[in-house]
């Protein structure tokens, strides 16, 4: 199960999508748009960081009776 508080990749991606759609719809005060933009950039960077390439990590569990 996912750890509490920490949002999954999907949740953050959906949040970013919703944010951008709201911004595109317009109508919010400028200050809020800029705040949303800042927040969106943070989300995007965190998502991209998660996608950053790394070396393959294969963990092998020992087969023991549970």
């Amino acid at each position, binding site marked *: 199960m996912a750890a509490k508080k920490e949002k999954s*990749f999907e949740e953050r991606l959906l949040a970013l999508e919703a944010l951008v759609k709201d911004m595109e719809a317009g109508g919010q005060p400028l200050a809020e748009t800029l705040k949303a933009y800042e927040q969106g950039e943070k989300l995007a960077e965190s998502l*991209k960081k998660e*996608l950053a390439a*790394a070396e*393959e*990590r294969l963990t092998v*569990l020992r087969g023991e009776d549970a």
Partner: protein
Amino acid sequence: MQGVTLTVTQLNDYVRRSLASDPILQQITLRGEISNFKMYSSGHWYFTLKDEQSHIDCALFRQYTYGVRFRPQDGMKVLVSGSAGLYVQGGKYQFYADGMQQDGMGELYQRFLALKEKLTREGLFDAARKRPLPLLPRKIGIVTSASGAVLHDIRTVAGRRFPGIPLVLRPAQVQGDGAARDIANGIRQVSAVSGVDVIIVGRGGGSMEDLWAFNEEIVARAVAACPVPVISAVGHETDTTLCDYAADMRAPTPSAAAELAVPEREKLLAGIEELQQRGLRAARAETMRSAQALQDLLLRLQACQPLHHVRQMAQQAAFLQQRLREAGRNQLQMLAQRTDALCGKLYAVGPRQALARGYVIALKRGLPVTGVGQAEGELSLLFQDGEARVRVLDSKEGDPFGRKEGKEL
């Protein structure tokens, strides 16, 4: 000679149709032993099925051979499904098979069907139970043989789609005694690893017995009870095990399972970058809108300046003054014209004209004399160029021009 006369073909065709019209003969499972098995280059199989007393020729056409999961051999005991019919050209009665399984597997197969029925009734395979796979799993659990091609295929595909995605392997015995228990334990164990949010359970192709562990109840239950979604990739596409039914997603091959579990990194990145661009555009647009609004307000503010107001008033005043002047001038002109016209008229009706033409105005004590009755005593006569005092000698009423009254001139 008695009865109807037929050609050979007519007879054979008649018998073929008689057989074909019997519903029992259309759906039979035949039990027997294979002999004289032949595989033709056309892909069709021909063989004889026999028991202690009888035998029957059988044909299994190519399209059905793909469904047979073993290589038939003479002497094998089998169950063959199909229909009995007549081969018209040869006048031979034979069996047209459309499926074949090894006899003795029958019992195992019955167990499979019974268990499937039971678990279906329990709702273990309900579509509503199926969970969506995570878009980007933090770790992917794998339960399969440590040595088989399955692990290799999954690693290859996962590494290509998303280099560096963490894989957690729980090696499991995938066939033989204890395999089912090991697989079920493996699923439980790997699902407990922190970060694992999707699991691939897999095994390469094999005979029904080889795959049997994946048809055991404990495996199906372990898959169904797994707290994270399970992708099942057992055997070939044509084999469906209870593990496949219980899984959230079924993949035809281990590579396909990896494709389902692992997203393409580049696609995700491109999607995020597109969102970033859109966000930037939206923020810019909003900023520009605000700047434009500010500009508009500034213009309106300028329009409200007092100096501007005064200037406008002065302009208005000058304009009014101009109009006033013009109006005055027009009025004067009109009055002058009217005066001129009146003077002309006055002149026309005045006495001077008459005097010039020879008329004389008679005055008595300063008042005009308009009738002969007034003409007595002294009168003054006005001429165009002077005045004369005269005395009336005589007067007589009547038309001075000697015409009777009432006659028109």
